[in-house]
């Protein structure tokens, strides 16, 4: 079934991208979920859409080729992340208000740029729901770089980030540079989001970061295992999503999310059955 994916270059690009984001999205998503920042991922994906639209606009109107939609999306997403953090410190007591602000700004800009670029057609559809045929070699290189950065930085700062996630106050009292670590984290989140959009789409990118974790958290022991299981769920969903997307000619984002939802429901059910059995045995 996968043979086509090794034959055609565009499918190879998609497959490698898929496998990479199936790794880094749940990896970073594990921290996003336990830190209760899932909504930030949603906000950032809409800012990334604005960046993509901006890139499309430059390409179509002015023939700009060096700033492809992927790279301008990444740029917007990173600046969006910085902006969210500014907002969160300004609205200290209402930190969640940063999300509707950034989300609406993202959608507003997207509508403007997409209209100006005449892109209210296939382009938009692909960006919203993902596509199996949209990743270029050039984009793939960008995604490989992002994946490398994410994995290296997360490995180096794993213990600090874990401590910050588990108990922020304790981290601060111990002299961990909580603000800087958090900032690094939020920028990584922005990078992962922009890397994932091509395949899962703007509307579903936060799902790829959070649903595998939601399933994994039910059955994992400890945080490392949570990460491991999340990645397994993520990769499974990506592979099924890409294959079905290609053969059934549907955007992969939908299938990916439905596979994730199914595994989520399965883990919840299995856990319940298992607990019941244990309880019966205990009686």
């Amino acid at each position, binding site marked *: 079934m996968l043979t086509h994916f090794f034959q055609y270059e565009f499918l190879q690009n998609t497959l490698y991208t898929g496998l990479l984001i199936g790794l880094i999205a749940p990896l970073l998503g594990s921290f996003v979920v336990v830190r209760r920042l899932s909504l930030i991922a949603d906000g950032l994906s809409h800012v990334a859409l604005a960046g993509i639209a901006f890139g499309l606009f430059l390409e179509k109107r002015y023939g700009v080729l060096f700033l492809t939609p992927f790279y301008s999306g990444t740029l917007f997403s990173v600046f969006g992340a910085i902006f969210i953090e500014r907002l969160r410190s300004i609205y200290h007591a209402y930190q969640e208000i940063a999300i509707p602000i950034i989300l609406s700004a993202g959608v507003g800009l997207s509508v403007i740029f997409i209209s100006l670029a005449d892109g209210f057609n296939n382009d938009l559809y692909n960006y919203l729901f993902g596509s199996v045929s949209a990743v270029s070699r050039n984009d793939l290189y960008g995604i490989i770089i992002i994946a490398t950065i994410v994995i290296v930085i997360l490995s180096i700062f794993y213990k600090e980030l874990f*401590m910050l996630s588990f108990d922020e106050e304790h981290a601060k009292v*111990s*002299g*961990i540079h909580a603000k800087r670590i958090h900032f690094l984290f939020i920028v990584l989140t922005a990078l992962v989001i922009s890397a994932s959009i091509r395949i899962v789409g703007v509307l579903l990118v936060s799902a790829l970061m959070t649903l595998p974790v939601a399933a994994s958290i039910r059955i994992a*022991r400890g*945080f490392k*295992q949570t990460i491991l299981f999340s990645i397994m769920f993520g990769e499974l969903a990506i592979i099924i999503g890409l294959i079905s997307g290609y053969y059934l000619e549907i955007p992969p984002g939908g299938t990916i999310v439905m596979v994730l939802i199914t595994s989520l429901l399965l883990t919840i059910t299995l856990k319940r059955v298992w607990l019941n059995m244990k309880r019966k045995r205990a009686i």
Partner: protein
Amino acid sequence: MNKSIVQMKNIKYAYEDKMALNNINLTIPTGSFLGLVGPNGGGKTTLIKLILGLIKPQQGQISLFGQDITEFNDWNKIGFVSQKANSFNRGFPATVKEVVSTGLTAQVGYFKFFNQGHRQKIIEAVDLVGMSDYLNQNIGDLSGGQQQRIFIARALVSDPKFLILDEPTVGIDTENVQKFYQLLHKLNSEQNISLLLVSHDVGTMTKYANGVACLNKSIHFHGNTSDFTNLTEHQLSQFYGHDLNIVTHQH
């Protein structure tokens, strides 16, 4: 040599313009197990924050281990279990081992990984609080009293000489409170760790601590436990600003 762990001289601290502590003179000798009592809002947590260097006094001097706090940088010698320690996210998927490891994170430092020696220390700290059987359990699956022990292990893993606990027994049932004090007593007498404990269960505390300080903006009493239990109710209620029931649990 200076034998005291903490020395506070003439300390004054106000939040904005609200006086929290005034004219504090307090010496905690090495080896003590000092109970700190006082009414809510009496400034106990503020006093601890001053000792931890998280806030700076507007007036007065603090020395830690004989060294002025502004020059002190041996923070690993001081362990801290916060009042908020057990308000963590109970659904957090972390094992006991992982939680206790965070007590070493700052000590190990950036760009370095935990090694075999660190892992050994983690196991020993968990053992010390009697929770070895739970090393690989999720922290959220433990009872409140067990979780509190884990937070103590997290504070102990970096080998502190002085352990500060801010209301650690809130929300723990009486029987486990007894066990908890036995653990503190063991740390104090067998591991030679000096303790500063903020607590409201005065009755149980006076059985295990060897000194008591009573704080309500300033220190109203500081002496050994028998002198404290001999205080008249009238004297006590003056410190507290209201009546205090001393309940000694006999188990």
